[in-house]
């Protein structure tokens, strides 16, 4: 299953990783938005699992979490959306992103088995650092689900091996110390940080947090294997609601074009 993820980062050009919150604005609206991401050229899809207390997220994704929960989204809806996505898109890697409590509420074994059944390729969990790996890591690895970890500007070289240990798929580099969708890191610091992190891992590195426009995405993509865009897409969902698919496809297409051609420009 990890093959879909490695394939996405082995196309000889940077990958576009896109995030939306599952169930936002409603569970029924999510499949069309996911299809729009694929149609627009996203290489990896992150599907956010809504949580009542999204403490690492800025206002845009906080609001998306609350919209989704207000629409009645349950964990079962997220897995149903994932399974249907897999049936429609056998090749596009799908990653669930969220917070620990909804992932472990029924036990990590249950969660990992559901992921495997739904064709989910990997997990990003904001609040399970490598120190707490036993909480969910062993179950994910046993079911062949990639545990994708986050590295940040505060992750120093000494700590990096521990962060990478037991992870697979790709490494998500959080480019700024902060919450999602707020400030943006300077390109110079990205270049330096990615070089530093690359010395500690063979995993592809995707850079995210604060990337909103095709220009910014291209600038980051020139230094990494992938770029993650979330809040800008979530903002479109906030603006257009159930009709968000077409605007999401348009922004994704512009981002994909910029990211896929970034190396040539660099």
């Amino acid at each position, binding site marked *: 299953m990890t093959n879909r993820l490695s394939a996405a980062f082995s196309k000889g050009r940077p990958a576009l990783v896109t995030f939306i919150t599952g169930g936002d604005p409603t569970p029924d609206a999510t499949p069309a938005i996911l299809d729009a991401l694929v149609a627009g050229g996203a290489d990896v899809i992150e599907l956010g699992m809504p949580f009542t207390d999204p403490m690492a997220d800025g206002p845009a994704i906080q609001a998306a979490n609350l919209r989704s929960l207000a629409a009645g989204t349950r964990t079962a809806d997220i897995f149903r959306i994932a399974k249907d996505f897999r049936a429609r898109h056998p090749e596009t890697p799908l990653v669930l992103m969220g917070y620990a409590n909804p992932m472990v*509420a029924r036990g990590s074994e249950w969660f990992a088995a559901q992921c495997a059944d739904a064709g989910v390729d990997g997990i990003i969990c904001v609040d399970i650092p490598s120190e707490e790996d036993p909480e969910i890591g062993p179950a994910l690895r046993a079911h062949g689900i990639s545990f994708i970890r986050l590295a940040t500007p505060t992750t120093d070289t000494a700590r990096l091996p521990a962060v990478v240990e037991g992870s697979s798929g790709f490494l998500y580099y959080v480019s700024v*110390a902060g919450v999602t969708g707020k400030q943006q890191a300077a390109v110079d610091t990205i270049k330096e940080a990615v070089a530093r992190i690359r010395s500690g891992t063979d995993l592809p590195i995707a850079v995210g947090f604060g990337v909103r426009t095709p220009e910014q995405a291209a600038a980051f993509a020139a230094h990494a294997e992938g770029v993650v865009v979330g809040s800008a897409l979530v903002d479109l969902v906030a603006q257009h609601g159930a009709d968000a698919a077409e605007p999401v496809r348009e922004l994704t297409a512009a981002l994909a074009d910029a990211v896929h051609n970034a190396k040539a420009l660099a």
Partner: protein
Amino acid sequence: MNTATIPNSPLPNSLRTQPDERGHFGQFGGRYVAETLMPLILDLEREYKAAKADPAFKEEFDDLMKHFVGRPSPLYYAPRMTEHFRAQAAAQGKPDNGAQIWFKREELNHTGAHKINNCIGQILLAIRMGKTKIIAETGAGQHGVATATVCARFGLPCTIFMGATDVARQQPNVFRMKLLGAEVIPVTSGAATLKDAMNEALRHWVAHVHDTFYIIGTAAGPHPYPELVRDFQSVIGTEARAQLLERTGRLPDLLIAAVGGGSNAIGLFHPFLDDTDVQMLGVEAGGHGLDREHAASLTGGKPGILHGNKTYLLQDEDGQITEAHSISAGLDYPGIGPEHSWLHDIGRAKYLPITDDQAMEAFTLCCQLEGIIPALESAHALAALPEVAPKMGKDQIIIVNVSGRGDKDIFTVAEKLGVKL
């Protein structure tokens, strides 16, 4: 009992040696934080270890406790409260019953609650670490006031995150914080109470880790916070233990304290954990009742992960956190410190939910019988007395932690009593 006068040398099988080196109390506790915060949490752990080993740190802490906070706080025998429950026991046909009731008077501390003990310890750590800005969350405002106080004392800028609902119901404390020079940021997400204030404080912290220290107000959050907050608050139990021994030559039979996050309770309980004859009762906020809205995470919740630790939480089957309710803003939180979760699971301490109405009765009783206006949080602890005191013998001793004074709560109480101020 008298042989063990000083609780400072835990036995090999002691209950006082938690957490383990990974910050776990049994299955609880831990460090469930975003990677951005992890290196800082590790720094804090190193710095706390160094501070504990540094006599100068302890000396400065003790000096501030004595001269700035006003410690030791008195251990007070409450004669009319004692008589009240003896009369109740007699009316129930048990004339030999009715335990002696003693109050640990934390409400007499500078700023009016136990919260200051922890703030003194943490700001000394912040200064050791070279941090130049302080943030904190607050529910009732007591921790916010205590944090603003130590920030003023040490000249550090202070930002307090407080749920907008709590800002409205705790106006006097909001004004106190502002007088002390703090900036109070009302948080409007969620139910706009303590949980949401903590989310927002964490969001701010993650963006300012390089220069900012987060003074967490209770014995919860990622390791090493539950440990260090407990250690700073343990002054309560250490004093109470020595004071009662000096006055009566014996240890208490029962300790009672209110539990929101649980810092005043763990501060009282911890020095007694290895005294096997001392029973402990933590009082949770039962709100409108356990079948309705409440904040009793041990009695009505299950283990989960929130705000950096694994602990009992109010949540649904999907792990979504449910809103807590209590008349007391300081107990209005859907979780509890991890050491309490552990003490609950191993059975060392018992936990009892008390409703808003029971707390109100105890509040009034304490005002009228002892001339002490307790905080609504502490009124929850006092409200356990009718359940236990009449069942105990007259020679038995209960210590109740009167963790804070109730001046801040008079508007809430007036509203509840239908009185317009």
